[in-house]
C-alpha cells in the first residue's frame, strides 16, 4: 500500500514535470527542482510538527516561530561580531530555553486539558513570540548570512546546478540535515526505548504512568526536541529567504509544512517529507504556471489568482477525504 502511494506520487510528479518541462526555452524547467528544494524545507519544519503530534497529539502552531527566534538570535550574535558557529550555538541554546519555558509554563499546566485548548495555547504562544519579535527587533527586514556563501570571494558559485537551477550550499546543507534528522527521528521512534515511551505517552498517558514512566519528562523532552528542530530549520532556512522579518517562518513555511505533514499523514516521518515535497512542487509549479499559461487573452493567474493555493486546498481535501490518515499514515 505504502509503496503504491509513494510510486503514485512520484509518477504524478514526473508527469507534471514532463507536462510543464516543454514550456521553458533555456533548458529544462527548473520549477520542479525549485519545488522539491522548497519542499525539503517544508519537510524539515514538518518533522518538528510530526514529532510534537506523535508525542502529544497536538498541532503545534509555535513550531515556525522557534525558527524565527533562532534566526534572530543568530543575527544578533553575528552582529556582535561573534563567530558564526557561536551564533548557532547561542541560537540553539536560546530556542531550547524558550521550548523549556513554553513546556513548563504553558503545556504542562494544560496536560489534562482537551487537545483543542493546547492547540489554541500554541497559537497564543506563537503570536506572543511574533509580538515580542516586533516589539524588540522591530519590523524592518534584516539580512541573515548563510553558513557558506552562495558565491565565493572570487565570484564563482559555490553550489551545484541541477536541471537548470543553481542550488546554493545552504540548501544542500539543509537537505543533508533534513535527511539525517529524518533518519535519526525514524530510528528514535522505532528503535529506542525513549522513543517508544514518547509514543506510548501520546497514546495513553495514564498507562504510561502506570508503567513507571514520568510523563512530565516525556513532555519536556518532546518540546525541547521540537524547539531544537524548529531552531535548526530557522537557521538553515531564513538565509535562503533573503529577508529576516518577524514571523518569517510562520507566514512562509509553517502553513505549507502543516499541509504537507497532514497530507503525508501527520504521524509519519517519511510522510512529512513526501507531503512537504508535494506541497513545494505544487506551489512552485503553480506559481510559475500562473504567470506562464494564458487562458484566452489573460494570464492564468488573472483568471484564477493564487492557483497554487487553490490546488493545495484541493489536494488536501482529496487526500483527507480518501485517506483521512494521510498518504503514509497508519491505518489505525
Amino acid at each position, binding site marked *: 500500500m505504502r509503496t503504491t502511494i509513494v510510486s503514485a506520487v512520484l509518477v504524478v510528479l514526473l508527469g507534471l514535470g514532463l507536462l510543464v518541462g516543454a514550456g521553458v526555452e533555456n533548458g529544462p524547467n527548473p520549477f520542479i527542482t525549485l519545488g522539491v528544494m522548497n519542499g525539503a524545507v517544508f519537510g524539515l519544519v514538518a518533522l518538528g510538527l510530526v514529532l510534537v503530534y506523535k508525542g502529544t497529539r497536538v498541532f503545534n502552531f509555535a513550531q515556525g516561530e522557534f525558527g524565527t527566534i533562532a534566526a534572530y538570535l543568530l543575527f544578533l550574535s553575528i552582529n556582535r561580531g561573534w563567530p558564526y558557529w557561536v551564533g548557532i550555538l547561542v541560537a540553539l541554546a536560546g530556542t531550547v530555553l524558550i521550548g523549556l519555558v513554553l513546556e513548563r509554563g504553558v503545556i504542562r499546566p494544560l496536560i489534562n486539558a482537551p487537545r483543542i485548548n493546547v492547540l*489554541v495555547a500554541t497559537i497564543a504562544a506563537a503570536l506572543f513570540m511574533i509580538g515580542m519579535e516586533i516589539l524588540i527587533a522591530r519590523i524592518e527586514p534584516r539580512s541573515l548570512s548563510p553558513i557558506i556563501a552562495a558565491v565565493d570571494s572570487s565570484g564563482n558559485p559555490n553550489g551545484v546546478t541541477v536541471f537548470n537551477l543553481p542550488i546554493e550550499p545552504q540548501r544542500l546543507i539543509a537537505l543533508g540535515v533534513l535527511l539525517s534528522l529524518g533518519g535519526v527521528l525514524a530510528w528514535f521512534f522505532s528503535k529506542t526505548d525513549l522513543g517508544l515511551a514518547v509514543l506510548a505517552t501520546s497514546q495513553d498517558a495514564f*498507562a504510561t504512568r502506570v508503567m513507571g514512566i514520568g510523563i512530565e519528562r516525556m513532555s519536556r523532552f518532546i518540546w525541547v526536541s521540537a524547539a531544537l528542530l524548529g531552531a535548526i530549520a530557522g537557521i538553515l532556512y531564513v538565509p535562503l529567504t533573503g529577508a529576516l522579518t518577524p514571523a518569517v517562518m510562520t*507566514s512562509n513555511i509553517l*502553513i505549507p509544512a502543516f499541509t504537507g505533514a497532514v497530507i503525508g499523514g501527520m504521524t509519519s516521518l517519511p510522510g512529512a517529507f513526501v507531503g512537504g515535497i508535494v506541497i513545494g512542487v505544487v506551489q512552485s509549479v503553480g506559481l510559475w504556471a500562473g504567470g506562464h499559461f494564458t487562458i484566452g487573452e489573460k494570464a492564468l493567474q488573472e483568471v484564477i489568482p493564487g492557483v497554487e493555493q487553490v490546488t493545495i486546498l484541493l489536494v488536501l481535501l482529496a487526500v483527507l477525504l480518501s485517506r483521512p490518515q494521510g498518504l503514509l499514515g497508519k491505518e489505525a
Partner: protein
Amino acid sequence: MSTQTDETQTISPVASEPSRFRPSTRGWAIRLVVIALLAVVTVWRVATVQPLWADHISLAAIFAIIGLSLNIVLGYTGQVSLGHHAFVGLGAFIAAHHITERAGCAPEEGCIESSLGTFSVAILLAILSGVISAGLLGMVALRIKGLYLALITLTYGFVAVNSIFEISSLTRGGAGMPAPRPATFFSDHKYMVLCLGLLGVCMFIDWRFLRSKMGRAVLAVKSSEAVAASYAVNVTAYKLMAFMLSGAFAGLAGALFAFRRQIVVAPDFSFSTALLWVLMVVVGGLGSRLGVVIGSMFFALFPFLIQLVGFLNDFLANTLQRDPEELTLVIGPFLALLTMIQFPGGIAEQISPITRWLGGDRFTMHPEGKHHKPSLLQRRRAKKQGLEVHDDAELVATKSEDLLRDAAGEPDAASTQTMAAVDSSEEVKS
C-alpha cells in the same frame, strides 16, 4: 481522564440538585435598579460619545459579532476555525462589491451614499456568502475526525487571501473596494447604533439557538460524541448547522466591517487577525455569550484604550517608540495564555458572580452545581494536600446527557448506565 474509576461514577452530582434560591421582592427591586442604572449609564455614555469613539465602538460591536461567530465553532462544537478571516473578508467584499459594482454606487462616479435598499441587500448577500462558504467547507471538513477542521479552515483562509481576495473585479486589488454607507446610517453615531443593534440581534439568535433542540445537541456533541451518538443525534448535521450559523454571523460582521471604513482591502483580513480572533474568544470565556462579547470588545478597543492612558501612551510612543497596536500583539496572546492556564473560564468566569446575582441568584464567588475547571492555583493547593486533581470528564458527560435527553426526548435514561455503556463501548472499540 483515563484515571476514571468505578467510584467516580457514583459521585456525579446528579442527585445533589441545590434548592433553587429565590430573591425577595426587595432583592428583585435592588437588582432591577442596578440593571436599569447600568443600562442608563451605558446608553448615555454611548449616545454622547465623540464620532471617533463611535467609530471605535462600531469596531467593537463588529468584533463581538465575530467573537460570537467563532464561539459557536469553538465554544459550542469544540472545533477550531483558523480561517475566519476568510468568511469575514468574503462577506465584506461581497457587500462592497454589490454596492459599488452592481448597484453602481462608486465614489469615483460621485456616489457618496448608497441607498438603504442596496445596503440591506448587500448585507443579506454577505450573510448568504458566509452561510454558503461555511456550509461547503463544513460538509467536507466535518467528515474528517479530530482537529483537522482547523487545518482545512486554515488552508481555506490562505486560499481566500491568495486567491479570492486577489480577484480584482471583486476587490479592486490593493486599492480596495469602496463601500459607501446609506444616508440612514451615514454618521458614525448612526452607524454605531446599527452595529450595536445587530450585535443585539446576533446575541438573541445565539441565545435562541442554544436553547433549541439543535443547540443542546451540539453542546452534547462537544462534551462527548459517543454519548451523543448513543442518543441517535445526527452529529454531523447539527455540527454543520452550527457551522453555517457561525458563517452567517461572520458574513454579517464582514459587511459591517466594510461599511465601517467605507473601503475594504484584503490586508484587513490576514491570518494573524484570524488567530487573534480565536484568542479573544478564549479570553472572553469559551461558550459564554456575554464573556465572548466583552472579550472581543476589549480586544477591539485595547489600542484605543491605551491611548487614553496618557502616561502609558507617552511611554509607548516616546520611550519605546512603539505603536499601541504592536502591544496588542503581545498583550492579547499573553492574556489568552493566562486565561487558559490560570482562569480557564475567561472573563465570563470572573464576572459570573455579578451576572448570576443580577439574574436572581445568590451572590457567591463559588457557584454551586456549575462545574468549572480547577485553576493552577487550586491544583497546586490540592497537590499540597496530596490530592490528584481530576478532569471534569464525568461531570461534563453527565451534563451532556441531561441536554441530550431533552434533545432526543428520552426521559428515563439512567445516567450511570449510559456512562457504563459508553465506557465499555469505547473499550470494545479499542
